[in-house]
């Protein structure tokens, strides 16, 4: 049985997760004359995975869809729907220590994607993408980078039982630029099928240099295979926040 977690890390034989975040944000935008990319709307992050080697190696595919109303320089808005990059990732997990139900796992992931995120002369698509990345708290910047092949290298170590888990991770996400990300999170099933998870993420952008993002999630487990969650991300470094439900189905 899975421990509460913020990340859509693959587990079991196969699974899928759809996470929706809605909110408003004004994240920094690399084109200085347009900064920031103020918008409101939502982002849908779709992930599916299957085990290649049970409990050891998975292959996942994920893609974000952004629906945003993007502010333009004279304060009007333009609606935009844009697909981010589609990414395939191989995930490796090994248990390095176990005592009763307590176990320590190490994970490693390598991902590469298709540069499906578009660009346009008015920079509306790119601002919508930056907004989508912001709503997710900077979780996967490579998915929102236009005109570039997304690359991902990640490693983490976790200590968990079936009731709780903690995890420390480091990621290098590369789109137009390489973004180092460091994460720490913890979660627990607190009352029967109800759990909570929370985490902090620090990532390094070109401008501003360092952004801290806080995540929180309230989870409800429905049977053995499905988990509903209400998630929120609040970054320090720009105005705005994202909140929304996610549904995870795992076999």
């Amino acid at each position, binding site marked *: 049985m899975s421990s509460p977690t913020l990340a859509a890390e693959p587990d079991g034989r196969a699974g899928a997760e759809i996470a929706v975040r*809605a*909110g*408003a*944000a*004004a994240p920094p935008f690399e*084109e200085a*004359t*347009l*900064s920031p990319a*103020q918008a*409101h*709307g939502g982002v849908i992050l779709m992930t599916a995975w299957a085990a290649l080697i049970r409990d050891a190696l998975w292959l996942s595919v994920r893609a974000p869809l952004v629906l945003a*109303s993007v502010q*333009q*320089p*004279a*304060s*009007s*808005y*333009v*609606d*935009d729907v844009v697909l981010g990059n589609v990414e395939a990732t191989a995930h490796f997990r090994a248990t390095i220590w176990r005592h009763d139900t307590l176990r320590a796992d190490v994970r490693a992931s390598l991902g590469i994607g298709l540069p499906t995120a578009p660009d*346009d*002369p*008015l*920079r*509306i698509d790119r601002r919508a993408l930056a907004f989508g990345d912001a709503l997710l708290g900077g979780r996967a910047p490579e998915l929102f980078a236009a005109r570039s092949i997304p690359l991902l290298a990640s490693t983490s170590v976790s200590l968990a039982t079936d009731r709780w888990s903690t995890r420390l991770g480091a990621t290098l996400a590369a789109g137009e630029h390489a973004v180092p990300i460091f994460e720490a999170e913890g979660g627990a099933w607190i009352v029967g099928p109800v759990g909570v998870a929370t985490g902090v993420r620090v990532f390094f952008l070109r401008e501003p240099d360092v952004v801290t993002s806080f995540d929180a999630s309230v989870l409800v487990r429905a049977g053995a295979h499905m988990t509903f969650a209400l998630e929120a991300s609040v970054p320090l470094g720009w*105005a*705005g*926040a994202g909140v929304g439900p996610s549904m995870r189905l795992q076999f």
Partner: protein
Amino acid sequence: MSTSTRLAVALLVASVSCKRYWVCDEPESVPLPTRLSETSLFADIAADRVTDGVVAYRPAYELWSDGATKRRWIFLPPGTEIDKSDPDDWSFPRGTKMWKEFSQNGVRVETRLLEKVDDDAWAAMAYVWSPDGSDAIAAPAGARDARETTHDVPAAGECEACHGGRKSYVLGYSAVQLGQVAVPGDPDDRDALGYLHANCGHCHNQTRPPRDGARCFDPDNPLDFRVLANGDAPAARTAKAMQVVAPGAPSQSRIIDLVSHRGMFKQMPPLATNEVDANGVRLLSGWIQRMPQ
């Protein structure tokens, strides 16, 4: 209210409402040059000498642009003339070009171009000046705080927000704006009505052309702030009907409340301005103060 809170409330408003008249359609590709020097405005850009046939003009009533100073020019293709059969909405010949240059605090920031590219289609572009003043470069995405001023350059799609509210598409070159119409009232009233015409009438008028898709501006109300070529100015009666003015009581008038503020939730005009026009507020307040109850 913090920026985060305002953004969150904006999301709520956007999700449950509303008259989304501030949402613009993304424009189609814009067939305009990438440099201002290629638009035939200047014969000698370094000497600031315009091309023969390009005529400078100044409207009687100016749009408030946060204190920016402006220069304007018009070019009509040789042998053509403006169709003035509708005196309130002149029809310009294909090939007409109009430029408006914005300077703020002595810095020449941008020059906008409107060009009539078809019988019923205009193309628009803003050009941001290079620091050395040698040329201006097209900025289809617009720019915030351009050239290190507080002036924002609109994106190409935003031109439609104001210009699309009038059949003529042209706002500052008309019978009223060229002084060919007697604006009713005493001089103070004329200034106020002219101010409303120039700053509000392109959206708040009853002859807005219909459009498909999202509209930048389409206030669904009977306000009409134009001065018409027949000398009529329906501003007072439509404003009274909509109860946006309280005759004799400017401080209780919604229109004064709106034009006296800037921000996400209370602002008029809603676009292209970040600073209150104190002179405009004074003009309108006086107009309402003198308005018979």
